């Protein structure tokens, strides 16, 4: 979030050609200036606040930006500024995804690899010809979709949240259906995929092991782990959504 704030600040400056001094951006570090935090009455982070020119008390007369608005990051901060101060921030200049240095490096690497890759393609031996690559690609697509990673990307959900009541604790799992956090998605996706991976291991790798006891142990291990993984996912799902799924028995049986 801090980086987005910097982007807004630098865009404002570049758009107004450093001539407009009506608005300035600052940030406060908790460890260095705890008393300033108290002055503003800040309870939780992240926290963005606008102090107007007519404000007498820092705590009560300043406008706080709502947590829910952070989802669109730089754009929403710019809107917040514009709506409260009637000053325009102008278009936001996002830094490019890859800096020029990185881009140059990548191009150089690609050029170096090109002849080697071309030779292997013509020989018919590249990675692309191996079905295992496609299988892992397929499993990756599945993992990506099912863990709700798309949801996290579109909504720009954080990896974890700080617990509101206890700032030292981190909340990894969001309780409530329809929304999820970043780490949560990865955890669940991992649990799904581990079951499939164990299947592949058992079917292919285990066959070549000679020792019967080792084979049996491995299979037992697979059974237990997959059982645990499924149980975990179902428990997590029940906790998250709060549904009590039950069968319907005839009421005369109760």
């Amino acid at each position, binding site marked *: 979030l801090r980086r987005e704030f910097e982007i807004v600040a630098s865009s404002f400056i570049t758009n107004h050609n450093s001539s407009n001094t009506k608005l300035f951006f600052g940030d406060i570090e908790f460890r260095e200036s705890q008393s300033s935090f108290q002055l503003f009455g800040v309870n939780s982070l992240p926290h963005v606040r606008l102090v107007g020119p007519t404000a007498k008390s820092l705590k009560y007369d300043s*406008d706080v*930006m*709502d947590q*829910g608005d952070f989802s*669109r990051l730089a754009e929403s901060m710019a809107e*917040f500024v514009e*709506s409260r101060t009637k000053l325009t921030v102008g278009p936001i200049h996002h830094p490019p995804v890859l800096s020029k240095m990185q881009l140059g490096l990548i191009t150089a690497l690609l050029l170096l690899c090109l002849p080697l890759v071309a030779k292997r393609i013509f020989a018919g031996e590249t990675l692309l010809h191996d*079905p295992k690559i496609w*299988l892992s690609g*397929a499993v990756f*697509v*599945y993992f*990506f*979709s*099912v863990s*709700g*990673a*798309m*949801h996290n*990307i*579109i909504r720009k959900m954080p990896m974890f949240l700080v617990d509101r009541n206890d700032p030292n604790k981190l909340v990894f799992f969001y309780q409530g*259906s*329809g*929304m*999820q956090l970043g780490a949560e*998605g990865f955890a*669940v*996706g991992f649990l*799904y*995929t581990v*079951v*499939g991976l*164990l*299947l*592949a291991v*058992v*079917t292919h790798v*285990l*066959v070549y092991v000679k020792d*019967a006891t080792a*084979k049996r142990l491995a*299979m037992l291990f*697979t*059974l237990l*782990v*997959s*059982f*645990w*993984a*499924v*149980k975990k*996912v179902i428990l997590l*799902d029940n906790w998250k*959504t*709060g*549904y009590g*799924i*039950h*069968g*319907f028995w005839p009421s005369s049986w109760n």
Partner: protein
Amino acid sequence: MATMPASASDLLKSFKLKTKQQELLIRVSILCLVYILAFITRLFSVLRYESMIHEFDPYFNYRTTLYLTENGFYDFWNWFDYESWYPLGRIVGGTLYPGLMVTAVLIYRILRFLRFAVHIREVCVLTAPFFASNTTLVAYFFGKEIWDSGAGLVAAILIAVCPGYISRSVAGSYDNEGVAIFALLFTFYLFVKAVNTGSLAWSLASAFGYFYMVSAWGGYVFIINLIPLYVLVLLITGRYSMRLYVAYNCMYILGMLLAMQIRFVGFQHVQSGEHMAAMGVFFLMQVFYFLDWVKHMLSDTKLFQAFLRITVTSAVAVGGIALGLGMVSGYISPWTGRFYSLLDPTYAKDHIPIIASVSEHQPTAWSSFMFDFHILLFLFPAGLYFCFKRLSDATIFIVMYGLTSMYFAGVMVRLILVATPAVCLISAIAVSATVKNLTVLLRSKNKVVQTGSTKGSGGSKSSSKALLDQSQPFQKNGAIALLFGAFYLLSRYATHCTWVTSEAYSSPSIVLAARGAHGNRVIFDDYREAYFWLRQNTPQDAKVMSWWDYGYQITAMGNRTVIVDNNTWNNTHIATVGRAMSSYEDEAIEIIRSLDVDYVLVVFGGVTGYSSDDINKIGGGVFPVIKEPDYLVNGEYRVDKGAAPKMLNCLMYKLCYYRFGEMMTEYGKPPGYDRARGVEIGNKDVKLEHLEEAFTTSNWINLRKDNASFQWCLSLGIVDLALATNQNFLETELLTLFQAT
């Protein structure tokens, strides 16, 4: 006497079936049971309430079906509806997909011919479950085509109860998807069969299947992009064959010609960017065929290689230039917003708020996947693995269908529906292969080389071949344990599906139920009460203004002209209504009078936040005079004393809370306590100058459900104020408030 036992045992022997006949009997009976199961599991809401049409969109479909039965196909196809989108009207014949209506009317005519005196409404209500049952049959044949008949049976069972499909095909949900999923799977099955057999008959059948799909749903774009992608993959992996050539060519050309018969689609197959992939692959196929023929004619391989390189490069170049020319000159239109937002998911949020606001279009969290698929999610990667082990044209297809549909399901919740058949099929392969291996193990008698099998109770594994294992009894026990595990797992799946169907997906949304104080069930029929009041107490040419969610229902049940409805094809018109709702009463009355409105319908829901965003954002998108920050306090919507002044005096607020200040809604709280928002309202003394209250429905009890499937209609049902503006007519309709009990 001695002959009697002989003849008795002979008699019994003659009844004993051969193994093949036994197998056929088992399969047919399973299919019959699954067919019936798929139908009856969708009947919860009919049994609980009554046989009526649910939600909003189906009412439009019902109205058009009524029109079709009364006036015949020619009038229907050329129908101009002047009762909706007043004063613009709507060209119905050219803006809808007729498949659903024509199907329902066909079934109705057949039943009438057989002298069953049914009403068209019953046919409409039960169309979706009927086609769901047909889908299970198609899934069986598809599974048989891909793997074997065991997989087909499991696929039929899984898809019969899968919640992802049930959500859009319950009885009463008379919407395009109910028929479209059947058409989708049917088309795919016919095409895969055509590719496998190479027969012209199957290819033509798949073209007609595609035509049915195009007539049924806008999602046909998925088919016309997936099949070319599949053909491309086959070409790249070197599986080009004459069968593929015949299948794709027939299907594409004939399908395209047939699809152009639907006016809504028109010439899109040759003009729209979304359909260009199919055309590109079509030409590529011709190039491949040409090269194959040249190879056949030439005997010199070196010459052929050179020729190959030249041809492929020039073909690709020519294709690229043609596409570029088409896009630059504007003949080929770029991807429309609806489908473009699937490729670039962040596009809709920033550019098209109307699309981004529908709750069905939100990205999917993993709990939604779990809710709709349950253990199929675990079986899916196992099935993927099996398919990769036995790669054939058919399994490549199902893998591609599964992966693309899962990706799109991750982008948009609504598309879980499209992914459901693929997930069911692939999981069925996993289940069937595993169970087969386990039972083979159980039935093996002292064979030297045995197949061991492992299976996690939570997942399914394939068998692994083990050499000479001495501990045979343990293996048998293990196999039995694992089979029980599989059985347990599938029964948990069935329980989950039934619970989900009963609790989450069987609500008609037009009739609501809640638990009263003593646990008895209370039914709110306010919507229908209101619409019938409109129908019976207002003049025939009265015009009703409301938020667009209720448009279809007002025209279908109230039989009155509306200003905007769910078709949302004219953003400016909707923005005008939004502007009227959000302005002060004096400005609003100008707009209302200019639109010739007699009545304004308001639904006073308690679920704020979502729809009020829409009204402001959509209104503000077209009319800059509406600024969302004017209604906000610290970034949130409030209705109590601290609310923004514009909010307290806008038309919607005044109509909603008219005389609400006198109501005692909850014991111990002051009058005018809004139970949904948990605050006492700010402006209790609402005076209306130009509008009068005409009618209020009776219920103030509150009900809220957290289910994702409900959110779209409850949360959108915020506030539509119903006010009649002309002379002394005032009608305010306050329907139910929604809140947690």
